């Protein structure tokens, strides 16, 4: 059997129900809740922003960087002299830039020379090729002209030979006629003298 009966439980519940918070704390709690409701939109926006994994990652990264920077500053052996640091950086930059300038100048010079040589070689090759082509063309043209001259000379010689043969025939015919005429004249002349 239980040691606590229903009446005892009801009595305790009745006691609980009689508890009343003070008016001040009630008013304070209600005001806080009212403020919470009023701020709810900005709270919601903040919660939405920080729910985003990208934002959380970015925030964590920023915190890590800040922590690293702070640890670095704290653990550094001596306080940093800004003027000295600036002078050292300036000197370092100057020497670095001058060395780099000479190197860049040499590299640029070499590059320009190399480009010019290459360009000249290409131009010469192209020029030689073109000259060769022109010369070959000229030779072909000369050969063609010479061949044409040979043909013309050959034709002229052939014509001369033909004319020469024809003249020989004519002279031969003339000689024949002349001798016939002489024979006829001789035959006529004795009869005149005898008669």
């Amino acid at each position, binding site marked *: *059997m*239980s*040691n*606590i*009966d*229903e009446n005892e*439980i*009801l009595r*305790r*519940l*009745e*006691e*609980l*129900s*009689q*508890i*009343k*918070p*003070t008016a001040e*704390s*009630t008013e*304070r*709690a*209600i005001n*806080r*809740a*009212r403020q*919470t*409701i*009023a701020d*709810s*939109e900005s*709270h*919601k926006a903040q919660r939405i922003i920080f729910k985003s994994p990208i934002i959380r990652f970015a925030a964590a990264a920023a915190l890590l960087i800040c922590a690293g920077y702070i640890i670095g500053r704290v653990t550094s052996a001596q306080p940093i002299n800004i003027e000295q640091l600036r002078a050292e950086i300036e000197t370092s930059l100057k020497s670095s830039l001058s060395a780099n300038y000479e190197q860049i100048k040499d590299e640029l010079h070499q590059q320009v020379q190399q480009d010019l040589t290459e360009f000249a070689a290409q131009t010469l090759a192209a020029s030689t090729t073109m000259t060769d082509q022109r010369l070959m063309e000229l030779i072909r043209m000369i050969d063609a002209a010479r061949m044409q001259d040979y043909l013309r000379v050959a034709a002229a010689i052939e014509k001369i030979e033909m004319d020469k043969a024809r003249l020989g025939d004519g002279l031969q015919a003339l000689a024949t006629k002349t001798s016939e005429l002489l024979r006829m004249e001789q035959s006529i002349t004795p009869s005149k003298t005898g008669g």
Partner: protein
Amino acid sequence: MRDRQKELFELLDKSGANLFALLTRLTLREDIAEELMQELFIKLNDYNGLRKIRDWNAYAQRVAANLAFDWRRRQKRACLSLDDVPQLASNDNSPLINLINSEESQEIIDAISRLKKAPRQAIVMHYIQQQPYEDIAEQMNKTTHQVRALCHKGINHLRDLLGSKRKGIYNVEH
């Protein structure tokens, strides 16, 4: 969003004091009740399905009770030493201090927190918040008879819980 704020302000004006009283009764600490009151309205504001709730007052009471019982469970797990307990907000002569000092109140609230959801809700609304059965029935979407049965069942269970605890203590002491 503006409508939600307006509705919550109305709820606060209408039932804010009752909700705070409930939180104080279940935590027996005004400072904690203030914190939980704020948490309650954050929860109400963040709840996406708030428009589907038929009775906001009843819903807010349920959430408030759950917050208070959750806090009690966390407190039990934390096992605070007496030095860690903060000073109470009320003055020494208030009935609240007297009740806090009595172990009986702590016992009954712990026992209520161990009840099932429906009887616990009925017990809190009827016996601690002093609401009539008809109102509770409407808020819980049940008949008056069902609410009475839930209360009866809850009281019986409380009697078992408290009785078995007493027996345990008695056996250990002797």
